C-alpha cells in the first residue's frame, strides 16, 4: 500500500509566526486541473490589523539595521530559496499547471531577483542622494529613508511576482503587509517559511491569504500604514476606491500597472524609490 502523504496546513504569516485566520475561515484552493490542493486561510480585517501592528513593531529595528545587514538578510532569503527550489518548482507546476521548464524559469528568476535587490541595499542611497550646493555657508545633504509600513496587493505571479514587489520594499528598510494572490496563495505561505528561516526579523514581511477585495480596503484606510502598492489590483473600480481611501492619511500610492508586467524582465529602481522619502539636513559651516 502506498504511503499516505502528510499534507501541510497553510496558515497566515504574521509577526514571524504562522497563525490561522482569527476568523476561523478557510477557502478552497485547487490545482490547474480543479483538484483540491489545500484549504488556505481566509484572512479577515482583524488579521490585517494584526499584521499592521506586527509590521509597525518591526519597523524601528529593521529600518535602523545597516544597509549592509539588510542586504545580507535578503541575500539569505535567496540562499534558502535556492535550497528549496525543487519544492517551489513542484508547487508552481501544481498550482499554475505550467511545464517543468517554465516553473524552473520562474523559480530561478525569483532567486536571482532577490539577489539583485539584495545588492541594492547599500547602493540605492548613493544613487538617489545628493550633496546640495546651496548659496551660503551650509553643509546640506539629501538622503533617502524608508517610508514606513507598506501594504502590498501582490500580483498573481505566485512566486516571481510576489518576490518582485516585496524585495524592493524591505531591502530599503520598510516593513510590509502583503495580500498574496487570491488564486495562488500557497506558494506565498511556503515563501513565508523561507523568510522565517532566513534571519528576516518577524514582522518585516507579513503575508495574508484571502480576498484582496475584502482585505485591501482595511489596509488602504488604516492610519498606521504609510504606503500602498496596488500592483495586484486588476479591478479598476477597486483600485480607485483604494486610492481614495489611501488619501485619508496621504499614503504613498503605487498605482496598478497600465499594461501587463513582464516579471522576467530586469526591473528599474522605481520600486525602491516608491517607498523612500528624501530627507534634507542643513548645518551651518563655521569655525
Amino acid at each position, binding site marked *: 500500500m502506498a504511503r499516505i502523504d502528510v499534507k501541510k496546513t497553510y496558515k497566515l504569516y504574521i509577526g514571524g509566526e504562522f497563525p490561522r485566520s482569527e476568523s476561523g475561515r478557510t477557502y478552497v484552493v485547487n490545482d490547474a486541473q480543479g483538484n483540491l490542493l489545500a484549504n488556505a486561510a481566509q484572512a479577515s480585517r482583524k488579521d490585517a490589523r494584526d499584521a499592521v501592528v506586527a509590521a509597525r513593531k518591526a519597523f524601528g529595528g529593521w529600518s535602523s539595521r545597516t544597509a549592509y545587514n539588510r542586504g545580507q538578510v535578503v541575500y539569505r532569503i535567496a540562499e534558502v530559496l535556492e535550497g528549496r527550489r525543487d519544492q517551489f518548482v513542484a508547487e508552481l507546476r501544481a498550482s499554475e499547471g505550467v511545464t517543468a521548464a517554465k516553473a524552473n524559469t520562474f523559480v530561478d528568476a525569483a532567486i536571482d531577483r532577490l539577489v539583485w535587490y539584495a545588492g541594492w541595499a547599500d547602493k540605492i542611497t548613493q544613487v538617489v542622494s545628493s550633496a*546640495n550646493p546651496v*548659496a551660503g555657508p*551650509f553643509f*546640506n545633504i*539629501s538622503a533617502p529613508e524608508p517610508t514606513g509600513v507598506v501594504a502590498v496587493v501582490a500580483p498573481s505571479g505566485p512566486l516571481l511576482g510576489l518576490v518582485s514587489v516585496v524585495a524592493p520594499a524591505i531591502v530599503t528598510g520598510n516593513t510590509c503587509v502583503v495580500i498574496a494572490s487570491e488564486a495562488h496563495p500557497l506558494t506565498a505561505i511556503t515563501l513565508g517559511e523561507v523568510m522565517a528561516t532566513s534571519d528576516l526579523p518577524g514582522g518585516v514581511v507579513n503575508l495574508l491569504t484571502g480576498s484582496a477585495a475584502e482585505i485591501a480596503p482595511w489596509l488602504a484606510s488604516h492610519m498606521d500604514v504609510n504606503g500602498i502598492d496596488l500592483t495586484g489590483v486588476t479591478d479598476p473600480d477597486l483600485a480607485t476606491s483604494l486610492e481614495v481611501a489611501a488619501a485619508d492619511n496621504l499614503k504613498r500610492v503605487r498605482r496598478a500597472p497600465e499594461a501587463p508586467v513582464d516579471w522576467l524582465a530586469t526591473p528599474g529602481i522605481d520600486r525602491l524609490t516608491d517607498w523612500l522619502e528624501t530627507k534634507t*539636513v542643513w548645518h551651518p559651516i563655521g569655525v
Partner: protein
Amino acid sequence: MVKVPEKATAFFEYAPAPESRSIVDIKASYGLFIDGEFVDGHGKSFKTINPATEEVLAEVAEADESDVDLAVKAARRAYTRVWGRMPGSERAKYLFRIARIIQERGRELAVLESIDNGKPIKESRDVDIPVVAAHFFYYAGWADKLEHAGLGTDPRPLGVAGQIIPWNFPLLMLAWKIAPALAAGNTVVLKPAETTPLTALLFAEICQQADLPPGVVNIVTGAGSTGQAIVAHPDVDKVAFTGSTDVGKAIARATAGTRKKVTLELGGKAANIVFDDAPIDQAVEGIVNGIFFNQGHVCCAGSRLLVQESIADEVMERLKRRMSTLRVGDPLDKNTDIGAINSAEQLAKIRELSDIGESEGGERWSPACDLPKNGFWFPPTVFTGVTQAHRIAREEIFGPVLSTLTFRTPAEAVEKANNTPFGLSAGVWTDKGSRILWMANQLRAGVVWANTFNKFDPTSPFGGYKESGYGREGGLPGLAAYLKGIH
C-alpha cells in the same frame, strides 16, 4: 523669573523708513493670462486687498471652468507644437531670461508682494524675490541636461501641469512650481491664491517681456472652484499643489483612478528642539526666525518649541526679551520684523486657536506692542505650559504663535517631535555633533535644520513625510517630479 520690561524697544525708537510704493503700478482690474495674453474671464471677479490697510488694490477675474479649459487647451497646444519639442538649450535661455528680468524688476516685485501679502519688505526684498530668481536660474540650467538627471538617457516631460499655490510666499511658490516644470519641457496652468494674485499677474507680464511662447505659462486667478477645475480637467497630466493638508487630501481623492502624477506640499507642525548645551542666544534667534518669520505663515514653521527642562526658564526669559524687540507694523517699513496677517479669515483662525490654547490651560504671553488700527494684525505670542494633548500643540496655527513644551532626554525629545501626523521639518539646537546626526536620523521629517532654521535654496530638496504630503521641490527630486523617466 526675571520680569520682562514692558517695552524694550523704548530704548531705541526708530524713525519710519518706508519703502516707496511708487515703483509699482497696480491696475484697477486684471484679466486672466491665457495663451500669452490678458483676457476677460467668463466668471465673476473678486477684490484683492492690502491686508495692512484693508485698501482695495484691484479687481481680479475669477476663472470658471470654461476659462480653465481654455487655459489647458492653450497649454496643450503650446506643449505639442512648441515647448515640448523645443531643444532644451533654447528652453534654458528663456528661463535664464526670466530669471534676469526678475532680478531687474526685483524691487518692484518685492514691493508688490509686500503690499498684496502683508509680509515685511525686508523679507520680500531679501528672501522671497532673490530666491525666486535663483530658482529660475537653477532650473534654467537643467533644461538642456535632463539626460544627466539620473532618469535614463531620454527623460520626457509629462505634458500639461496644473499648479495651485498658497498665499504665504506667492511668487516664491510660483517659482518652485513653474521653473522645474518648464525646464523639464512641460507647459503650465497656474492658479495663485485668492488673496495674493498680483505678483503672479506681474510674472505674466514678465513672460511677455521675455517673449515666452504663448500658452507655455497660463495664469488663472480664482478661488477653490478654479483650483478644482484644474485638478479635475482630464487633459492635465500633473497636479502640483502647495497648501493645506485638507485640500491636499481632497486632491489625492480627486485624482484617484487617473494617471495624473501628483505632488503635494502640505501642512506642518515642526518641532524646534533646544538642548541644554546649545548656544542659547543663537538658539533664541533660531526660535524667533522659526516661528515669527513671515508672520508664522510658513508650512515648515518651528511652531512647537521643545526645550530641555534644565534650561527652559532661561530660554523663555531670553526669548521674551527678544520678542519684545520685534517691530510689528507697516510691511513697507524697512525696520518691520512682523507684518500683517494675510487675511481676516486667517486672523480669525489664529485668534480662535490662541483662545483655545488659553482655555485648555496654556499660559499665553505677548510683548506690549501697538498694532495699527486698520488691517489684520496679531502680536508675536508664546504659550508655555503646553502639553501634547493641547490643540495648539497638534494643529497648524499658521500664525505668529509658538507652543512650548519641555523634555528631559533626547529619546523623549524624539518621541514628542515625531508625535504628529505631519512630517515636514524639524530643528535641532545643540553643540554636540554626534547628537545632531543622531537626532537628524531619528526625526521623521523631510527637512532637518540643525543649528539653523527656515533656510531655503533651489538646490535643496524640500517636502514632507506622512501627512505633510509627497514629492519634493528643489534640487534633482524637484526636477524628477516633472519628468517621465526610466528609473
